[in-house]
């Protein structure tokens, strides 16, 4: 059963445009120039219960707007949206009790009070039984390592600490659908890793549906086997992450390490041109058809200490994908 269903979603904004300067400001007082921005333009997709999906696209592509429509904050210009079978526009209580939108840039934690007060507030408004609340909170505190944080005023926590507490506050009522908008933004590498593994564990244990936007490709690679790519409001890809990589950058990167120095001429003769090379290592970009023969030749003729085969970095894959889409008529 689809947890999230979106049919021909369109969301337009009217945006006031004004050039700089006092005269322009005065003129705009009497006559405003309004432009229509097509933030989301005829987007359709379904997400099955319990699955994790990445929502990718450049800034201003329409990702956050779509999440806000799904969470009931924005009303669509047209199209049909259903989350857990309900229309988010009317904000039914049953739906609000079953979903959560977490954004890395806006917080629900009460700024002047310790996070535990926000947890207590959410326990009351989401009507979580005390026994369940205590158990869930204990588990969240352990998994996210919050013991020392939840009784300090929120304003005195670091960004990473606040983000962990945000996640805990968002999950007190065990939502079945999680919309995560840049949940690891501004976090250091180890904190990103903790948050990522926590989200995966939460989704697996609760069979929770996750729709995630992130500019960190590690988030996407670690969490979401399926991705939706949106660009200028239009959905341009919906499928497995591996398919996106294969379609956009079919070449593999092969890194060779040598046990003794290799002459550049010999390297060129055996493998063809390298992307980068030194006496002790070389990086080759090879297509699927020639890779097997090239690697076999290298193993036979070069002092190979180690080698690894990788897909192109996801950042590059996406950059290529968007560049190709922009070039299309």
């Amino acid at each position, binding site marked *: 059963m689809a947890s999230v269903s979106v049919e021909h979603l369109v969301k337009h904004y009217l945006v006031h445009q004004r050039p700089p300067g006092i005269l322009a400001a005065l003129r705009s007082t009497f006559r405003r120039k309004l432009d229509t921005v097509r933030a989301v333009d005829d987007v359709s997709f379904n997400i099955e219960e319990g699955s994790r999906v990445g929502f990718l696209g450049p800034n201003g592509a329409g990702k956050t707007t779509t999440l*806000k429509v799904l969470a009931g904050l924005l009303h669509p210009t047209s199209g049909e949206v259903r989350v857990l079978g309900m229309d988010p526009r009317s904000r039914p209580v049953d739906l609000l009790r079953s979903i959560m939108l977490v954004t890395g840039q806006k917080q629900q934690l009460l700024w002047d009070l310790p996070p535990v007060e926000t947890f207590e507030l959410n326990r009351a408004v989401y009507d979580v039984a005390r026994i369940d609340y205590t158990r869930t909170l204990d588990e969240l505190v352990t998994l996210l390592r919050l013991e020392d944080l939840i009784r300090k005023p929120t304003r005195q926590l670091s960004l990473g600490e606040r983000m962990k507490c945000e996640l805990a506050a968002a999950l007190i009522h065990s939502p079945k659908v999680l919309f995560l908008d840049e949940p690891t933004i501004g976090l250091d590498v180890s904190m990103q890793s903790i948050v990522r593994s926590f989200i995966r564990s939460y989704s697996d244990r609760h069979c929770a549906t996750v729709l995630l936007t992130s500019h960190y490709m590690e988030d996407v690679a670690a969490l979401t086997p399926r991705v939706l790519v949106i660009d200028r409001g239009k959905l341009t890809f919906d499928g497995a992450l591996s398919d996106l990589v294969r379609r956009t950058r079919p070449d593999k990167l092969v890194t060779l390490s040598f046990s003794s120095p290799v002459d550049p001429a010999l390297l060129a003769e055996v493998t063809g041109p390298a992307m980068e090379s030194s006496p002790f290592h070389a990086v080759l970009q090879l297509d699927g058809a020639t890779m097997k023969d090239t690697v076999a030749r290298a193993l036979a003729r070069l002092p190979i200490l180690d080698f690894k085969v990788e897909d192109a970095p996801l950042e590059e894959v996406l950059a290529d994908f968007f560049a190709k889409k922009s070039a299309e008529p």
Partner: protein
Amino acid sequence: MTALALEPSRRGGAARFAGVVATLARIAFAVAVAYRSQFLVWILATNTPLVMLALWSSVASEAPFGQFGQRAFVAYFLVTLIVRLLTGTWVVWEMNIEIKDGTLSQRLLRPVHPFLVYAIDNLAAVPLRAIVSLPVAAVVLLTVARSELTRDPVLWLVAALAVLGAWLISFTAMLAIGSLGLFWESSIGLWDLWFSLYFVFSGYLFPLALFPEAIHRWVSLSPFPYTLAFPVETMLGMTSRADALEGLAKQWAYGLGFLVLALAIWRRGLVRYAAYGG
């Protein structure tokens, strides 16, 4: 996390509602205490009735002005100060900021109507205001102008409901104007207009009885006297029981009317909400 989906807490609707209200009130009180210095400044800034008291007492020092002698002015403005401190609200500013910067989204995500949360946030500050300011005002009132207060218990009962009604009109009018921020980006200008009319027609600057009769009659038709002058005059026994009960009915009709209006504007405005930021 073993529970796949948490069970609701098996309490009845009323008990659950009471629990939500109690938690919201406790947390709103904690927030009010967190801002205690700012709060004290706000209370001290609500000093207009004291300025008016000094001004009008001096005017009436030699002879009564209209029906008001010096003692009557003292009683009027001290009661005005007490009612003002108990009925003050600030939700229109809160709504305008939250609509503009998108913080309103966090309220909309929760399964509790934001109007209820705003109401509790505002009411939770009342006890703190009362603790800080009421004893001083009450002692001065009782020592200087006790004879001006009504001795009719029915009027005191009406006055208690009228103070609540005054808060209700101020709060729901602010909700209605604040909700217009969903259409206009900012509705503070309209609130400023409301507040300028309130200043003149609520009895804040001078007792409404000092208006010429024709103007007084027109002013009585507006909601402004019910936000301040009505409970003040009731406490001072300036009205009969029958007029007080009629006034109470009108006051609550205004309060509920503004609430219906605010809900209608809010509902239509949410369609336009842009949820900027984040």
